[in-house]
């Protein structure tokens, strides 16, 4: 109670200065808050300043990463092969963990140095000048490839496999230092390492798996001198005149002057030819006759003008028999005779006499063989026509190759004997055709002569001068050695029991010809005689070619298509194992690209870009999308200057067209005038492609001189289930065209190369190759399930296909076809502090 009483007395004491204390307390607290707030603001400002530095460094880091990634998108493969060799190694097939592969420090250093060059020019970002000047620094650049999986983990029959093709992630990081702040920007993108060679068909200059009938390529009328017989009208499947052959030039190389050539590597680096069998199992390529100028005619069956005594009949010179053991030249009745043969191509018109019967009118068919018991009819004239395809080049540019088929060449042979005595001067003496069967060989017989005037007839004995039997048989053997092969044009004979394997026949196409001499090609007189032992010792690269020269060769030299292996070139980047060396193994005839590509199973592992046009129903819109997705207009800064469309990027592009479009419907049109400065493969599904203008790798003519094509820039056009059409302005095509979709049940009615306006007004001029399911003529129109005509119908003027060796999976240049394709967008981009 006392204490309560004293409280009021204390109040004045407590009240004294109370307000001041409260005010001080409030302001102290307020001050603390304000100072704290201020400190926070100051810290925030410092942080913002750092954020500004961070943002600047990040933007510069992102720019730098983008520049590096874009450089990879432009193509850096030659450097990568040197500086990141592990990238080009086959990925482990054992399912082991993904590999990583760093780009070498020297290249990363070059990137860093160049980026620093740019950073040194960013004067505006400096906060201080003069002594305190501080520009951003690029302190580190790294590029790592994380290899995730092989596109072809295992080898399968009938499937293309490049063991180096793979997918993975490319990680590019760049560290930028700016005012003491170091920021590392890392971008990750998917990449694909894929070859721009679509498949095994690219091994071939011409790849045509289906042939309607054995004589489907026999369509070209030829004059005796090799010029095209424009008056000849081929009857199948409907009357049509062909104005020129389709010449295959299987290499860019011309004659190799003065250089010894290795046959194996020579053939390895050339484009081959695959002409699939007909339902009768083989096809005939009838060789054309000719000796005309370098710009015309077939190169083979000719003699240079003026070689023959009277200048009229040009024939291959006779063989000198170098066989003294069988040819008793010391006998009393020896006369200096030569026995020889004249190999002739087919022709429908001669420069004298009967214009309508061609070679047949010259009696080059044995009367016992054909025509049987009847007269030669003008409707049979087609049998004198030759092949529209010249797989061996032409006289201007002979081009050695290997044909897979089976393909047989047809030609005509006439045997003759020539007396070297001064009184006998004519070359055209003593034809006897074909060689007599062995059983009927009678040295006492007189050689039958063909034609008139042939006054001289010889006894075999007078030619061979053999002692009496049993050595007579040796004389016959000698005759066979002189003329070991003959294609007998018996139309009723089953194939392939007739004809000569193409590879055997053209095995001798070796390049010892000098470009300026006018000697016949091949130079028989320069070569050892067929009868010489030296001839047997000459290397030949066609399998069984030596065997083929034996008495009963059983059609050697045929390369059937059933079991074909295409090997990758041996190199440091491909492990030398059987599996990794195989690019393809299987039947070319049954090869199905849509299945190989993965379309049939809904997975297209090699594809790098997909353009989905399935929702579009306007053709113009579709074509614009295709054009803008794949190409860009050229500028004067481009090599080709303005006026062209240039591929926007390399890659394997898969274009999904509307499903309701079928072959024969709306075509996907490629823009006019494409200049290739990089490689790409365009695969479309549903419908046809139209090439509306030139596609070229060479610069336009300047001063009348065109630059040579750049083979390393590859373009492949592959409609999976459609045809390829050439527009009237598509005169020069530097691309591999592959309308390769098979016909029904692997037979007739497959995809083709066709002219948009038939017939094509120009000659074909393709630098690359052609793989079409079928190109040959049907015997009757009704046999063709489609009514669009065939490639031969579309291009009666023929033309030339020059093989681009960069498409060759077996050539050393193949590794240059492998391209690193980097995705357009990052999977992830992150910025973080760096030390």
């Amino acid at each position: 109670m006392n204490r309560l009483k004293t409280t009021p007395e204390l109040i004045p004491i407590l009240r004294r200065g109370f307000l001041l204390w409260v005010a001080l307390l409030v302001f102290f607290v307020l001050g603390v808050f304000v100072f704290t707030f201020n400190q926070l603001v100051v810290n925030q400002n410092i942080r913002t300043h750092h954020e500004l530095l961070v943002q600047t460094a990040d933007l510069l880091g992102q720019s730098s990463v983008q520049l590096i990634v874009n450089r990879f998108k432009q193509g850096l493969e030659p450097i990568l092969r040197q500086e990141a060799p592990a990238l080009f190694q086959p990925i482990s097939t054992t399912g082991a963990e993904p590999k990583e592969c760093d780009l070498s420090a020297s290249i990363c250093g070059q990137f860093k140095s160049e980026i620093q060059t740019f950073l040194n020019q960013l004067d505006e970002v400096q906060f201080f000048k003069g002594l305190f000047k501080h520009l951003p620094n690029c302190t580190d650049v790294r590029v790592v490839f994380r290899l995730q999986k092989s596109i072809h983990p295992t080898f399968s029959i009938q499937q293309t496999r490049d063991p180096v093709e793979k997918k993975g992630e490319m990680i590019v990081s760049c560290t930028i230092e700016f005012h003491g702040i170091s920021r590392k920007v890392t971008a990750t993108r998917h990449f694909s390492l894929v070859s721009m060679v679509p498949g095994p068909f690219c091994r071939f200059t011409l790849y045509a798996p289906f042939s309607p009938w054995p004589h489907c390529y026999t369509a070209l009328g030829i004059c005796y001198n090799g010029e095209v017989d424009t008056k000849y009208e081929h009857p199948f499947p409907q009357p049509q005149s062909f104005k020129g052959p389709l010449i295959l030039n299987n290499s860019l190389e011309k004659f190799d002057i003065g250089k010894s050539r290795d046959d194996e590597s020579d053939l390895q680096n050339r484009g081959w030819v695959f002409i699939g069998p007909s339902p009768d199992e083989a096809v005939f390529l009838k060789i054309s006759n000719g000796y005309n100028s370098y710009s015309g005619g077939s190169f083979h069956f000719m003699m240079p003008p003026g070689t023959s005594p009277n200048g009229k009949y040009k024939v291959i010179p006779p063989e000198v028999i170098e066989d003294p053991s069988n040819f008793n030249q010391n006998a009393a009745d020896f006369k200096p005779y030569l026995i020889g043969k004249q190999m002739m191509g087919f022709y429908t018109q001669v420069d004298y006499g009967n214009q309508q019967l061609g070679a047949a009118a010259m009696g080059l068919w044995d009367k016992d063989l054909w025509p049987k018991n009847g007269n030669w009819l003008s409707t049979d004239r087609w049998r004198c026509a030759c092949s529209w395809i010249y797989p061996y080049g032409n006289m201007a540019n002979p081009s050695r190759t290997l044909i897979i088929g089976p393909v047989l060449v047809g030609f005509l042979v006439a045997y003759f004997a020539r007396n070297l005595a001064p009184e006998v001067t004519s070359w055209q003496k003593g034809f006897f055709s074909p060689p007599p069967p062995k059983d009927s060989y009678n040295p006492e017989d007189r050689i039958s002569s063909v034609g008139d005037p042939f006054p001289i007839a010889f006894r075999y004995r007078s030619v061979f001068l053999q002692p009496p039997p049993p050595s007579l048989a040796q004389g016959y053997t000698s005759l066979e050695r002189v003329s070991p092969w003959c294609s007998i044009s018996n139309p009723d004979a089953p194939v392939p029991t007739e004809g000569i394997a193409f590879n055997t026949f053209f095995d001798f196409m070796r390049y010892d010809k000098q470009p300026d001499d006018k000697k016949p090609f091949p130079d028989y007189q320069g070569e050892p005689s067929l009868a010489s032992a030296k001839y047997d010792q000459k290397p030949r690269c066609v399998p069984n070619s030596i065997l083929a020269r034996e008495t009963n060769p059983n059609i050697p030299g045929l390369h059937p298509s059933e079991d074909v292996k295409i090997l990758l070139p041996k190199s440091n980047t491909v492990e030398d194992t059987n599996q990794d060396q195989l690019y393809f193994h299987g039947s070319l005839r049954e090869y199905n690209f849509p299945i190989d590509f993965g379309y049939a199973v809904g997975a297209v592992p090699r594809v790098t870009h997909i353009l989905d046009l399935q929702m579009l129903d306007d053709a113009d819109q579709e074509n614009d999308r295709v054009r803008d997705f794949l190409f860009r207009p050229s500028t004067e800064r481009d090599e080709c200057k303005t006026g062209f469309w240039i591929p926007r990027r390399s890659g394997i592009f898969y274009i999904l067209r509307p499903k309701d479009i079928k072959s024969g419907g709306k075509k996907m049109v490629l823009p006019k005038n494409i200049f290739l400065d990089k490689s790409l493969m365009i695969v479309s599904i549903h419908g046809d492609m139209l090439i509306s203008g030139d596609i070229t790798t060479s610069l336009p003519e300047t001063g009348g001189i065109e630059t040579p094509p750049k083979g390393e820039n590859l373009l492949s056009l592959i409609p999976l289930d459609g045809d390829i059409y050439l527009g009237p302005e598509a005169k020069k095509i530097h691309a591999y065209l592959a309308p390769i979709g098979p016909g029904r049940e692997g037979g007739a009615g497959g995809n083709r190369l066709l002219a948009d306006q038939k017939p094509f007004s120009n000659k074909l001029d393709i630098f690359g190759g052609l793989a079409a399911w079928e190109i040959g003529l049907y015997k009757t129109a009704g046999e063709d399930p489609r009514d669009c005509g065939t490639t031969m119908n579309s291009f009666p003027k023929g033309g030339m296909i020059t093989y681009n060796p960069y498409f060759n999976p077996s050539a050393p240049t193949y590794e240059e076809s492998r391209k690193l394709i980097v995705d357009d967008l990052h999977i992830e981009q992150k910025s973080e502090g760096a030390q």
Partner: protein
Amino acid sequence: MMPSFFLHRIRGFSMAEIMVAVFIVGLIIGPLVLLLNQSTQKTNVSMYLFLAMHYADEIAQQLQRMAPHFDQILAEAKDPTSQTTPTLRDLLMDGNFLNEVKKLDNNFTLAFFQFGAKKLQACLMLSPMDGHFKTRTLDVYPLVSQTSSILGQKNFWKVNIILEWKEIQNGPTQSALFPIILGNP
């Protein structure tokens, strides 16, 4: 009822006390208010700088993504009757385009690239800017690359993204500059 001791014993504060208190309050609150004001201003600086970073980043990201396609945009910009193709600097420094970029709408802006009077298909999508921002523009300069360029024979450009703002109506203009590097064929 109020206690009796309050009625009889309570006296008010003296004038001297009040004056001293007011004086002390004055002494203390002045600097505090000043400090608070400064802090508030500094907070605005941070805020606008962050906004500027956002605006700049928006442009930078789009330009970098567009970089591989500039050739197509430039080709579209080219006058078919002229032999020369505009450069990236011509494109990005076009007055009409920069007016679009600068636009101070309250809505998202599609700033279409333009060259001369020709409006192109490509555009930048830009956020509306805070009302204090006065300028959003680009400044482009060519960069000199090394003689043997590992980055390829391209044209390289320094693009400065510049933003300006005023924190108060009549206050000084603040600015920030963000550089990026672009390359085009």
